[in-house]
């Protein structure tokens, strides 16, 4: 019961702020609504008993990525883009098609809801954080290593692109 309430609360919050995010004229507002969405998602993670992810989500996204965004938004002068049309020429057809896509996929989920029943989820999730750590430094050590390269690349890239002259 509580589960349901939590879920629906966060879900509605997430969707609503997402919609606002893509519709706001002011980018800063958009960023803020994105943050809201992400926080709502984090809530859903919590509701799914993924505490570790809940934390990661908040720290990384809200704390990291969004800061980055705001920086950039500040760098590219705002007022210029404020009084412009925020949507491009193809907005209607694009929106329509996106909804078509949604209809397709959601419809698919609907028809196949039977084939993904309650599943074995009776088992209660293991001690989350510990299990995640185990996995991350056990089976998933290799991706972890690669991820370090990935971040290195991202760093170099950001530096190369961001600096005026290297």
């Amino acid at each position, binding site marked *: 019961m509580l589960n349901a309430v939590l879920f629906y609360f966060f879900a509605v919050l997430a969707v609503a702020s997402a919609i606002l995010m893509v519709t706001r004229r002011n980018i800063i507002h958009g960023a803020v609504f994105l943050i809201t969405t992400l926080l709502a998602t984090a809530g859903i993670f919590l509701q799914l008993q993924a505490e570790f992810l809940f934390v990661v989500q908040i720290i990384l996204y809200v704390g990291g990525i969004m800061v980055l965004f705001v920086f950039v938004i500040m760098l590219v002068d705002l007022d210029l883009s404020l009084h412009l049309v925020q949507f491009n020429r193809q907005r209607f057809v694009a929106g329509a098609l996106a909804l078509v896509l949604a209809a397709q996929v959601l419809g*698919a989920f609907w028809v196949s809801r039977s084939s993904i029943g309650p599943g074995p989820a009776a088992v209660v999730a293991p001690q989350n954080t510990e299990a995640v750590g185990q996995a991350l430094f056990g089976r998933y050590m290799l991706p972890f290593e690669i991820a370090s390269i990935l971040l290195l*690349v991202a760093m*170099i*890239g950001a530096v190369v692109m961001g600096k005026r002259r290297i």
Partner: protein
Amino acid sequence: MDPQLLSRMATDSLFILPEAMLALFGLAILLTDFFLASNQKSWNSLTAFLGVAFSAGSLLEVAGQNRTAFGNSIVIDPFFVFFSALFLASTALVILLSVRYMEIEGEQHGEYYALMLFGTIGMMFLACGNDLVVLFVGLETMALAFYVLSGFLRRDRRSNEGALKYVLMGAFSSGILAYGFSILYGLSGSTNLNDIANAIARRPAHDPLTFIALATVAAGVFFKIAAVPFHQWAPDVYQGAPTTITAYVSVASKTASFALLLRLFLTVFWPVRVDWVMLMGVVAALSMTVGAFAAITQTNVKRLLAYSSITQVGYILFGLVGSVNKDGSLNKLGLEAMAFYLLVYLFFNTGAFAVVIVLRRKGVIGDNIDDLNGLMQRNPGAAVLMLIFLLSLAGIPPTAGFVAKLLVFWALIQTQHYVLAVLAVAYILPAVYYYFRLVAAMWVREAVDPVRPAISVAQKFALGAMAIGTLAAGIFPEQFVRLAVYSILTPFGR
């Protein structure tokens, strides 16, 4: 952390030695780069080349193995070795071509080479990954490296624009791909490809969830290999990026994405092969059509080659189409064709771009068809090589491209895709038409500026190597075919 796990890790880590080497040298470049004066930056290329060499050497160590490592998250098999070798070769070639080019561009930086090496790491993990996570991370590593590289000429507006388009679309498509991956995980509860394959095999026929996964994953992969209708980034990025990187993207990243595609579709989606063969066929046909028609009126060589490489993708995909018989059984020839095609594609496609690269000089970008005019007088060697590469792209004997196309057609015939076969051969004609516009410019037209392009030793070496490869694989393809067969059929021969 039980010690026995650790020891297993230790032994396993031998199998990622090639990647490790690259990482090592990549970091080395980043470090040494600080100590190099701006006119000595080209030494970085040497480091990078050494890195590739060492990686290749350690790759030989693991060659011939056929096992999994890191808890079944990567497989060390001929397929991996084969493709890694391709990536390394391509990287080496591009490094050789880059030195002088970046010199002229005035963008001679350590980061450039480091990123290439890191990108290569991502590709190699794409080739060996047997786990969604590994594949995803590897793919992103490669992608990010390429985003940056394609935008490396920061002062060039085209380069910026290409890079921005690339990164936006790339991120978008990888989002779609990731969504597909998440569904795959949802279907199986595991990120291991084999488990997923079994899970999918157990799904009811024509299961919508599987289809959603299939569609989204396919969309992501098609984007990476630039197949119609997911191709549109390619011409713009190819034209904008530094030509060396254009060559790199069009060969290395494409080959890597094909490796990913093969892994996924030959393991995970193999149970539903009859459902995707048609899809592949249509996409391939579309790629050929759009590529061919669009290429005809291009005046920019890089853009033309971009469209032509879209056409090439069509041919390669036809190989995949030709590897599934009407009754759903595997037709080995199709896979051979694909592997061989990818192998020789490295030679002639890089080669074609290489000639454009050597035409670059101060003040002249050299990527207009008119810049080729009279090349036969100005630099016969380059003209002849370009001829060889273009013939190979068009599939005229005695070049590698002919054998490759021959195998593809043959596979199609064997699997009774007659219409597709006719289509495939029909599109040779427009191909010849637009390739020979370049040939005509080089051989027949008179030069507008009689400047003879200077070619550095490294570039000469690279060009020569690719030409020899193209001809050798065209006249005596036996060994190449054997190699392709061995490396693709060992894991997927069934």
